[in-house]
């Protein structure tokens, strides 16, 4: 038996107070998510039906469904991932595993940080100039997805680089001492241990890509186009732009419609991410260190 001194108990009280305070602050973070989700479910839920998910918009986009926008967003996200993930992961591997600490590497790092800070509407203008006009892709899925890919590259690069660097250096040294080359080490040891972090980057990218409106507005998304895209050179409708136009530009839209679109958009991102999330959980459970 020993009693706490006055000093100790004061410190303990202070710690308890801090703990509760920080816990409340963390709890506050959940609040917006809860409010958004319940509002969407409450207000948008009644709009969801089979016809809404798999029909074309009708009667001046005030009725009917959102299928072309839904399919369009899947195309945009898929094509953007196709470009940004290989490019971003390769760049991150170079920066983390090969690059020497010199002015060139520092310049690249600075460029990545700056790229992340560029507003999305500026990316949109860049996309119009570079992909729509100069490379002559026209307003198309390809141009829009490339714009989105460039915009989200920093996310993939930073997430991948962080997760590569989280793999203990001793793993690499052990591998090299067995006579493995740098590339063999990266492929067999570093990458498999970093996959879960890379997937986090991909999740962030999917969410951002699906939700962005400005970069696709002038590069590939249409206000109205009730046909499914057939190739990357087609234009398409997209959920984010559809949500924007029915809430700001189309008169006579029933209240529950925009909320329904938002609900489907969030659900879609969640479903697209659930694959990565499941894989991440699997990897975490099987992690050996």
């Amino acid at each position, binding site marked *: 038996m020993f009693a706490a001194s006055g000093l100790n108990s004061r410190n303990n009280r202070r710690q308890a107070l801090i703990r509760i305070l920080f816990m409340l602050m963390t709890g506050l973070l959940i609040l917006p998510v809860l409010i958004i989700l319940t509002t969407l479910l409450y207000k948008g839920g009644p709009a969801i039906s089979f016809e809404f998910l798999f029909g074309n918009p009708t009667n001046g986009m005030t009725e009917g469904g959102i299928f072309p926008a839904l399919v369009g967003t899947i195309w945009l996200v898929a094509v953007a991932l196709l470009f940004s993930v290989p490019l971003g992961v390769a760049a991150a591997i170079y920066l983390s595993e090969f690059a020497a600490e010199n002015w060139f590497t520092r310049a690249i790092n600075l460029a990545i940080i700056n790229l992340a800070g560029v507003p999305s509407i500026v990316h949109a203008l860049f996309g119009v100039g570079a992909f729509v006009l100069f490379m002559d892709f026209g307003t198309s899925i390809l141009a829009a997805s490339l714009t989105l890919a460039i915009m989200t590259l920093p996310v993939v690069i930073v997430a991948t680089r962080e997760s590569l660097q989280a793999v203990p250096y001793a793993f690499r040294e052990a591998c090299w001492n067995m006579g493995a080359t740098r590339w063999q080490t990266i492929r067999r040891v570093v990458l498999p241990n970093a996959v879960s972090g890379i997937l986090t980057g991909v999740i962030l990218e999917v969410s951002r890509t699906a939700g962005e409106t400005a970069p696709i*507005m002038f590069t590939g998304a249409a206000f109205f186009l*009730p046909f499914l895209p057939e190739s990357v050179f087609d234009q398409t409708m997209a959920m984010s732009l559809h949500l924007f136009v029915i809430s700001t530009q189309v*008169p006579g839209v029933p209240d529950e419609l925009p909320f329904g679109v938002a609900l489907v958009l969030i659900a879609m991102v969640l479903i697209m991410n659930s694959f990565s999330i499941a894989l991440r959980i699997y990897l975490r459970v099987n992690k050996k260190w």
Partner: protein
Amino acid sequence: MISKRLLLVGMTVGAVFLSASVQARVLIQNKGSDTLVNVAQAWAEAYQTIDPDVAVAVSGGGSGTGIAALINGTVDLANTSRAMKQKEIDLARSKGQNPVQHIVGYDALVVYLHKDNPAESLSIPQLAEIYGKYGETENWSQLNIEIPGCKGQEMVIVSRQNNSGSYVYFRQAVLGKMRDYKMGTRDMHGSKDVVELVENTPCAIGFSGLAYATPEVKLACIAMEDGAPCVMPSVETALDRSYPIARPLFMYTNGEPTGKIQEYLNWILSDEGQCIIRKKGYAPVQNVTCN
């Protein structure tokens, strides 16, 4: 082996996307004016049943956006709520495009007021003093109007962003060519936004297309001169040109339209197409009888 498999999957998906690039249907690119965008959408929607081989892709963004796209050659039909300026036509020509103008309807530009605003009519000179640079009118009491719920009776002047055709046309028709807008106006990015803001702001005055009218706002009766009889905005008064701020709505093509684009434009100008624009709250090009 994860990386190899990923690469394979990526290449396959890429090949599938790219190989499907042969198109069976004709895509008509239609972009521009926010005033026209909902009519353009209605036309595109109705045209699906007229010619299923044609897909019309409609985008908004403002008349300026449509004209820029025409100049860059990325659009088949540019919607505008103002005529192209000579400077823009010259620029288009220098880039090898040949803009051809088609009038597809008329729009009454309505001055919207809050429903508690007791004002019935406004004259063009009064509007010029409200919207024009160095204009004297900044307070509703200067017009002997008192709005319940409007603090200080100070006007909230709502305008549009400067690449909007409504912005350009209103300046032309109300302020005159040389005069600029007053500083400190609220510049909204869509026709619908203007009406929504006016709906919720007792002090507000704003202009937007007739098609965006709701039962919650008041439409001002417009007189050409102080003391002259005023005319209410409507499809009829826009059509007979008695309403002072009615404007033509255009579609521009690159050269005389041919093929599917010509068919589409002809259908827009037919009675069927013109009944659609009328139903949306705009005046048709010719008198049509619609059911």
